[in-house]
């Protein structure tokens, strides 16, 4: 797989002093990968996302998109933002239009699509995400889950190569968490690179190809979920717990090899042992 996004010695500070929100971040993400970013609140995940979309300009270091160094001039930034979409944690910060339809059309018109093309794409995404029932509603009259679906539609309609979800399950009820996760699954099936910040260890363990752990602005580990969640040192450092599957598996198995990926696999393992 080709590397789609890469950071080399990236530093970012909100103030002019050496109090860095991102410190020496080195990581690389391959095309089509499912990446979970984990770490305590304030560890730099959201700042990293804003740097990826070129909204924040790093103090030091370089960011590469498709192995090309990101340039911070207007034309290149607009091009980058059309390729890397962010679904923000708080949908109210993202939705500013009076209606859902207007909201979804905003990004496309900024990209220079004609009115007909925009209409076609907006209608398509509304159908794909099955949000016809509230597409005529004003954005303020939507529920939290519906707002999140519209926020995803906003970004998806722009056909990005990477889609970033900043805590997509935050403040959602189980039904809407399921809907959002189904959308994410569809995206990854279609080969889109998805980067997501989450505190849900169970979901990250099952879903992600790789997990990147942030602590105090630094990347302390980038590895497969199993390697992260069996490393007690990094888990303690980032205040993370082991996923339920691993906890259960470790409590009934002393070998600690061939960890199950999800509850289904654990169930099969237990049934086999019981026989």
């Amino acid at each position, binding site marked *: 797989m080709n590397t789609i996004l890469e950071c080399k010695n990236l530093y970012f500070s909100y103030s002019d002093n050496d109090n860095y929100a991102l410190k020496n971040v080195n990581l690389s993400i391959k095309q089509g990968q499912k990446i979970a970013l984990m770490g305590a609140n304030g560890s730099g995940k959201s700042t990293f996302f804003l740097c990826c979309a070129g909204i924040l300009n790093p103090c030091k270091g370089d960011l590469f998109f498709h192995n090309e160094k990101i340039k911070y001039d207007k034309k290149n930034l607009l091009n980058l933002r059309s390729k890397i979409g962010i679904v923000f944690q708080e949908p*109210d910060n993202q*939705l500013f239009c009076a209606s859902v339809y207007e909201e979804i059309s905003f990004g496309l018109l900024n990209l220079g699509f004609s009115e007909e093309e*925009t*209409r076609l794409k907006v209608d398509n995404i509304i159908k794909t995400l099955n949000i016809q029932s509230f597409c005529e509603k004003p*954005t303020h009259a939507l529920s939290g889950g519906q707002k999140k679906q519209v926020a995803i539609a906003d970004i998806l309609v722009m056909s990005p190569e990477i889609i970033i979800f900043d805590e997509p399950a935050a403040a959602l009820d189980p039904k809407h968490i399921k809907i959002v996760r189904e959308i994410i699954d569809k995206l990854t099936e279609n080969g889109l690179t998805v980067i997501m910040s989450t505190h849900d260890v169970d979901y990250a363990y099952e879903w992600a190809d790789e997990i990147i752990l942030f602590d105090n602005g630094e990347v302390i580990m980038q590895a497969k979920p199993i390697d992260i969640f069996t490393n007690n040192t990094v888990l303690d450092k980032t205040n993370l717990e082991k996923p339920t599957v691993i906890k259960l598996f470790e409590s009934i198995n002393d070998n600690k090899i061939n960890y199950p990926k999800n509850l289904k696999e654990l169930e099969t393992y237990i049934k086999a042992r019981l026989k």
Partner: protein
Amino acid sequence: MIIDKLSYNSKLRYENAEVKFAFAVITLLICVISRSAVIALIVLVVTGVLTIKSGVPVFRYLKFLSIPFAFLFLSTIAIIFDFKPFYITINKNVVFYALNLILTSLSAVSCLYFLAFTTTIMDILSVLKKLHCPKIILELMLLIYRFIFILLDTAYAISISQKARLGNINYKTSLKSFGMLGSSLMLKAIKRSQNVYIAMQARCYDDTINVLSSKKAKPKVKHIIMIALFDGFLLIFSIWSKFFL
């Protein structure tokens, strides 16, 4: 925002916005220019019936009308009464003038109520856009409309949290809580506007808000004819009453 809810639930919501806008504005202009009590009364009744028929409860509509009425009534007192050093006089002509003023103003308000209760803000904005209203004004209207609701929600949440901690136990505490609510709302509004700007930048915002409204209903010929007949009648009647009555 009750007006917003009413406009979304209106039976006339899906009728062509331009037709409704034209009806409201032309009727309002005729009403204001003619200054005729009869025309004002006709407009008041017709727009009132249309608004109520569109789904606004009668009591609620009258309540909404009572707001400008109270204001107009108090304002016209100063016109009706002539305060002299030792006595107060009242003139029959002035009373009629005041009544005419109240009726004209109320009917003008009822035209705007008709528009507000039957047309969503998005539709009104799209009509204004077609009328080449300056883009900056439309963008401001759009953002203000969106953020009124967010600020109201935030203010409500803060006020509930203050109440939960006895923030309104007495007059002095209430005043202090209200002040704190205002300042906190201000800070939150600034923070939120920064976040919105970031989110807009992430979607390639380039200093102009470009959005597309969903496809609207086409104007019905029947409605256009009815509006033309009604406004034509008002116009002819106002000219006739001006010169022949």
